[in-house]
């Protein structure tokens, strides 16, 4: 086998792992969309906020220190302690749950029965709010997130695959962090599926997703379900935020992963969890392969910005409800 072929395979493997990351973000969208019919644009910013909060708690930053300093003229920044990673993660989950409760109380409750576009706009407002709030709370500088996952190329994979190619092939270059992320994402998805299949709350979630009215009439509290769903979405956002944040630092661009997840959703269908995963894999592999085979050599690179959207667009023309979406039935 020529080395180019194996490099192609390497690109594909990297694409698969990127795809898992996309699925992770897309999952948060699907959960909320299924349970409340809300297309939550703030998912990406939630990931950013969760990562910021984790770093902030971990390194003992004082919340709102910049704001307090600006208003009172003091100079405080750190509490002077470091919180253990595990405890910090638990605290961050607590913050995300609190956030879910506040969102439900202050926003969603008042917007029941509004048109989807209005709800969508409200989540964009929420995204703006949370973005500014996170920066005010923890400062906007790029932060390093370290939760003990090793980074850099994985030597073991590289050495054990080097025999595949010829002289000028040195084995697959895979980032250890990506491998961890893949494993964690798979575990997360599996536990979510188990949760929704085999627990009472999970069954309630699925009931709400099926039919709001019917779920209400058998005594499921919509508002509790919404808090739970937003909390789970917050948790998924935390995982996504940690993975992406560990990779490239906790910074504004982290919130743009939401935009990466949108074509995944279109491809997989807004209402399907398996769709989000398979869509993510297709997009991840597709955009990496396109960049490798066509984008970089012929189009000047950086095609990853739009390829996923174009793929989804072309795909939707043939199947408007996405890969696994429920069939759209329209009646007059």
């Amino acid at each position, binding site marked *: 086998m020529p080395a180019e072929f194996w490099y192609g395979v390497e690109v594909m493997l990297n694409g698969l792992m990127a795809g898992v990351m996309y699925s992770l973000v897309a999952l948060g969208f699907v959960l909320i969309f299924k349970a409340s019919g809300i297309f939550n644009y703030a998912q990406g910013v939630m990931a950013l906020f969760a990562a910021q909060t984790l770093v902030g708690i971990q390194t003992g930053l004082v919340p709102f220190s910049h704001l307090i300093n600006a208003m009172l003229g003091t100079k405080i920044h750190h509490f002077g302690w470091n919180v253990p990673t595990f405890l910090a993660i638990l605290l961050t989950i607590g913050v995300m749950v609190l956030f879910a409760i506040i969102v439900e109380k202050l926003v969603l409750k008042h917007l029941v029965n509004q048109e989807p576009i209005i709800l969508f706009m409200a989540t964009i*407002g929420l995204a703006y709010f949370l973005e*500014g709030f996170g920066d005010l709370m923890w400062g906007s500088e790029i932060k390093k997130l370290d939760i003990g996952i090793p980074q850099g190329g994985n030597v073991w994979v590289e050495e054990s695959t080097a025999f595949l190619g010829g002289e000028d092939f040195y084995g697959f270059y895979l980032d250890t962090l990506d491998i961890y992320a893949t494993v964690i994402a798979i575990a997360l998805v599996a536990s979510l599926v188990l949760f929704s299949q085999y627990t009472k709350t999970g069954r309630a979630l699925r009931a709400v997703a099926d039919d709001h009215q019917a779920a209400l009439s058998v005594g499921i509290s919509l508002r509790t379900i919404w808090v739970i769903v937003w909390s789970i979405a917050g948790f998924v956002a935390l995982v996504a935020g940690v993975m992406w944040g560990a990779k490239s630092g906790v910074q504004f661009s982290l919130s743009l992963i939401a935009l990466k997840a*949108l074509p995944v959703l279109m491809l997989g269908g807004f209402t399907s969890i398996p769709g989000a995963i398979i869509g993510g894999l297709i997009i991840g592999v597709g955009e990496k392969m396109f960049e490798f085979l066509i984008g970089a050599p012929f189009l000047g690179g950086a095609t990853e910005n739009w390829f996923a959207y174009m793929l989804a667009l072309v795909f939707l023309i043939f199947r408007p409800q996405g890969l696994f979406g429920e069939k759209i039935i329209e009646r007059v």
Partner: protein
Amino acid sequence: MIYREVGDFKTTYRADGQTFPIRFDRIRYYVVLAIAFGVVPFLINDYWLNAILLPFLIYSIAAIGLNILTGYCGQVSLGTGGFMAVGAYSCYKLMTGFPDLNIFFCVMLSGLITALVGILFGLPSLRIKGFYLAVATLAAQFFLVWMFNKVSWFYNYSASGQINAPERTILGQPITGAETSAPVTYLFCLSILVLLAIIARNLTRGHLGRSWMAIRDMDIAAEIIGVNPLKAKLTAFGISSFYIGIAGALLFSVYLGAVEVGEVFGIQKSFLVLFMVIIGGLGSIFGSFAGAAFMVLLPVLLKNVLVGTLGWPTDIATHMEFVIVGALIIVFLILEPHGLAQLWRIIKEKLRLWPFPH
């Protein structure tokens, strides 16, 4: 008492079909026009023009454009930034390619080019609906911005990748470039806005506008009663993009003068214009103006208060601005989901009975 339909008798069909059938509306319209054309140009200076008036005028055009598509025809679009970029770059290519062409025609032609691009990206709307379409229009956004970044023909192979507006004049008065004077650019943008707003108002009252609204309310039912969805959707995309393209061309040539595509026409711009339309009111020309005014004034006001009065550092003020804008949008949607235009309707309803409410 002041605002009423009664006693305003129409004796001809012409009078009955005029743009503003109610006398109060008509008078208000002429008064606003008179102030805008006759008074404001003598009062403005560069600060007012650049901070408030020009962005307001230009974004109003964009908001009317998006309102035609989203408010009247019901097709949510997130590609506004990309279409504005098409307008800006066509304007640049026309200005540099045909130096003798009047800037007014440059702007109008860029609108036409954008309309063609808009129709092209509107084609999927015949198959894709709702949120799927909204996300699909993001394809236009990202693809167009990427294209203007990568293909150097669009920015005439300049090393910086920026486009700069050369100086162009109308009747000897510079409109673009460094030597412009505030009243001239103001009047130029205002005239285009008024022209486009009148056209939009009449389009939406006419046959085309009614077919758009039928499609918006329920496309299948509209199809059954004989509205051609192909024609209605594509004209909405085309006309909307025409407006948005003109706004992009003006933003680049008259207002900013120099543009880097990713910075100016990114996804944020799409959301900004969408905010204007939603806060102003979907399906209302007046709402487009109100929304544009709101979204242009709010940051200026906040900045003046936070940095000017309270003396905060600018970066913290910017974050605070995000928090406040986001919170206001949510509050607004909760209190009045139909936007500022609905408030105006309520006021009119009250005025009808004033001062003797029952």
